[in-house]
């Protein structure tokens, strides 16, 4: 449990949430060391989303917005959305993940049936039958130089763009507990691999050694000894930036800086929900998509966004050692079931199970660069 959050603070938050007229519209947020969302602009099927479910979103280095949905991809360029689907060569409509090769702008797209490389309009498909990829179900993809990493339902795949060769890592040739790989994230000289029931693998490409990080108490629901390792083994997502790895699980959130772990679970901390679908790391701040809304944290200060029973947007700010501040928002998330996130210093995009939300930041916020280490 986060020692900075006290019981009185939690009580205060609860009271503030339940009390009529709880909104604290005038409360300052400038002391929050990362951006705070002022409002959401939502895009649903009426606004052109091809499906309710939006699985992933990212802004490419050329400024184009890529939205992966249950029924294909939308690309926003020059203010207009253009759809890319199976009719254009995409191997399957259900898009699970995306990653950009920022060196040349190629977009790698994981689907329920195969990996796709979108390069200047051309789609090249990689499947388990056409190449050495481990499996067609691609949950996660990341690009690191000339290597594309794919997290699949039957192991981790390493695709060498220079040689065209594939390497597979699974329970046969690594310490991987099982081959169901949910997430992969390259991290400078490391690769973190999220294994569904097997915690996290840390791979050193230089020595080709895998190191396993498992929940020491092996208990799904309870984090018996906080901060002693991953909060749980059921890893749903991995994010990494600036030396910090974040683990999303269906039983909480973990942070790892290379030597120390910190863990958070709902009720024991401001984390809005244990069921973490996705984590986006920007600088040293985690954007955590759960089944109950969005948590944003640097590990000390937390800002949660959710929709209350009346369908109104609520933001809750939990500062270390202070009562939770709660206030209403004029807008709310498209849906509290957040599946994907992309954020920088200026804006955030949230993929939800019922549309896409564009998060507009408060002007008074400090950039996330000041977030505590």
């Amino acid at each position: 449990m986060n020692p900075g959050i006290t019981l009185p603070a939690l009580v205060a938050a609860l009271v503030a949430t339940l009390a009529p007229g709880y909104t604290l519209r005038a409360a300052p947020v400038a002391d929050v060391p990362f951006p705070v969302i002022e409002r959401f602009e939502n895009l649903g099927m009426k606004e052109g989303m091809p499906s309710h479910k939006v699985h992933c979103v990212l802004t490419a280095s050329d400024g184009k917005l890529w939205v992966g949905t249950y029924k294909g991809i939308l690309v926003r360029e020059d203010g207009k959305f253009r759809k890319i689907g199976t009719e254009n060569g995409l191997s399957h409509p259900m898009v699970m993940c995306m990653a950009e090769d920022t060196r040349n702008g190629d977009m790698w797209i994981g689907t329920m049936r195969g990996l796709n490389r979108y390069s200047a309009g051309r789609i090249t498909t990689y499947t388990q039958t056409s190449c050495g990829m481990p499996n067609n179900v691609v949950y996660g993809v990341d690009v690191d130089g000339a290597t594309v990493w794919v997290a699949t339902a039957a192991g981790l795949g390493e695709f060498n763009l220079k040689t065209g060769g594939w390497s597979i890592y699974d329970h046969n040739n690594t310490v991987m507990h099982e081959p169901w790989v949910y997430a992969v994230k390259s991290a400078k000289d490391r690769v973190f691999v999220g294994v569904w029931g097997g915690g996290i693998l840390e791979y050193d490409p230089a020595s080709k050694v895998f190191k396993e990080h498992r929940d020491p108490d092996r208990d799904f629901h309870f984090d018996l000894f906080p901060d002693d390792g991953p909060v749980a083994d059921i890893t749903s997502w991995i994010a990494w930036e600036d030396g910090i790895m974040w683990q999303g699980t269906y039983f909480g959130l973990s942070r790892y800086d290379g030597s120390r772990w910190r863990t958070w679970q709902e009720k024991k901390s401001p984390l809005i929900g244990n069921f973490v679908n996705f984590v986006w790391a920007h600088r040293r701040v985690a954007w955590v998509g759960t089944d109950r809304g969005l948590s944003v944290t640097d590990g000390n200060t937390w800002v949660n966004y959710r929709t209350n029973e009346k369908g109104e947007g609520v933001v809750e700010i939990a500062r270390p050692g202070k009562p939770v501040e709660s206030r209403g928002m004029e807008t709310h998330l498209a849906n509290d079931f957040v599946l994907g996130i992309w954020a920088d210093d200026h804006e955030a995009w949230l993929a939800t199970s019922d549309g896409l939300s564009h998060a507009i930041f408060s002007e008074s916020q400090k950039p996330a660069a000041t977030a505590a280490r």
Partner: protein
Amino acid sequence: MNLRALIYGLGGVGLAILLGWLGHHFGSTTHIRRKIGQEPLAKASCFQCHFVSTKRLPWARPRPHHDSPAGLALSPDGKRIYVALDDRDEVAEADVASLKVLRRARVAGGPFGLALNPEGSSLFVACKNGDRLAVLETAGLTETGSLGVGLGPASVAFCRTAKGDRLVVANSISDDLSILSVSPLAELTRPAAGREPFAVTAMPDGSRVFVANRLVGLETLRTGPAAEITVVDPGTTRVVRRDTLDSAHLSEGASVVPARSWVLVPLVKVRNQVPITQVANGWVMSSGLAVTDLKSGEVIQMPLDEANDYFSDPSAVAVDPGARRAFVASGGSDVVSVVDLERLAKWLGRASVAEKQEAIYDLALSSEYVIGRIPTKRNPRQVVVSGDGSKIFVAERLEDTVLVADARTLQPLGRIVLGDGGQSDPIRRGERVFTSSAYTFQHQFSCRSCHPDGHVDGLSYDFDGDGIGDNLLDNRSLQGVAGTEPFKWNGKNPTLEIQCGPRFARVLMRTEPFPAAQLKDLTTFIQSLPPPRIARHAGDKLTQSEERGRAIFFATKTPDGKEIPLARRCVTCHPPPLYTVKLPFNVGTKGPFDSSAAFDAPHLLGIADSAPYLHDGRAQTLEELWTIYNTNDMHGVSSYMNKIQLNDLIDYLKTL
């Protein structure tokens, strides 16, 4: 000697020969049946497996080298021309005024493509066989830098961008581009190109580079083969567009025409899925020029041929600085076609969309804008125009000369002589036959039109010798075929002389066969072709994955100890050193339109670079051989393999 003794003697000898032959035949057949686990489906002999050595094959022997000009580059002042001599590992510098070679510099690795910086002080050399880019200072013609790039770099373009000087290198074997910074010489990124990127040309302001790709994309094979023009922003190192050339391929040149906002790319219009009977109607292959309009994004294919005379293998294009004329070198026809760009622009300006789409099929149309044909010596492959637009320089590759012609009168002015033409070398003579369209109906194509560099064009064709509309056959590489007879997918041609002889003329060339002497030279040339190049270099140790794959290739048992039947072992049909037992096998790939189930076991040397696979090219990758098309384990027992093991096997195959 009396008559009876003579008869007995001859009879005895005859009987001994007959018995020997029968013994060899039945003995070999029995032995092979025992060794391969099934009845051989063709005549067999000891030489299927024994006495086979790559060391004795023609391609392994030393051969003469020639001063074959490849890439050309003119100095900014127009006084010097640099010529890449890939077969010599040299770059030559010649004086344009005197047409004399001044200096030669040794540049290892098959220097092929050239580019100069605007000052003319640095010459950048794409070394096709050495997988590197070399930098030469022109003052001393000495190599001052080198950088490894992708496989088979065939050309290079220099670009001066706001972000610094850039080089874009077309890596023809690894199907990608190396985008380099010049200072320091370093690779920034290596984006994917089309298939076999071969020629690059840059806008003068460095804003865009256009890359012509030789082969069609594998993904387009079934829907309509299309090659690609890859458009790159060298400043941002991004591929910004990929234009397609529908039903066209073998583009080996590219030239920008900034004044008209065009890019010109020569092409071969190919209709590989119509029966070869249509050669007689001119429907199988013709030559054209793709005009990309950079303003509208249109790509229009214009014909270069005439109704009854074709100008095959258009290999290079250059445009004069005034954007008045384009010069297209047709390597198969020994001609440079001269295109009046003003006339072409007028036609394009008045043509409807439909007329533009159909233009390539109207061979009479070329008379609207092709205003001359400059005859050359053998195999013009590269062309450049002088800075003042007064002269063109044409690399006559198989003549060891560079033709200099007046760009206005189209008359020859002389030649830079680099070598003796190699007439005494049968391999060189054979290459001349191989690259010439003189032997085909209306000069429509040469051997090279389907086998660029003796390799594959990646297409399947409908040969009508065994019926029309069936037996679609994948084009097989000629590289490394020496010693792998019999030929053809049905394995019925015992020698290359038969393969390329009268029957071939009737089925394909639709004209008289090669004269005997030329046929002999041709087969000599083909047999001199080494196997396709692969990423691994001789002497490299196998990786762990490749070692594991090797064990699978030679396995006699599955990992759980079950015996793999003889007929289903990789090595049974593909034994080293050529990795073919030279017999047909039924591997369960007979399709609904195939008349036979048995197909010749191809050699596996350089197989990594020979996609697509199987007799009809249905498998786009090596993986698909086993993940999709291995019916009942007939093409080797693979059903026990997991993906890691299959990857290991394929990693090993890629080392052969």
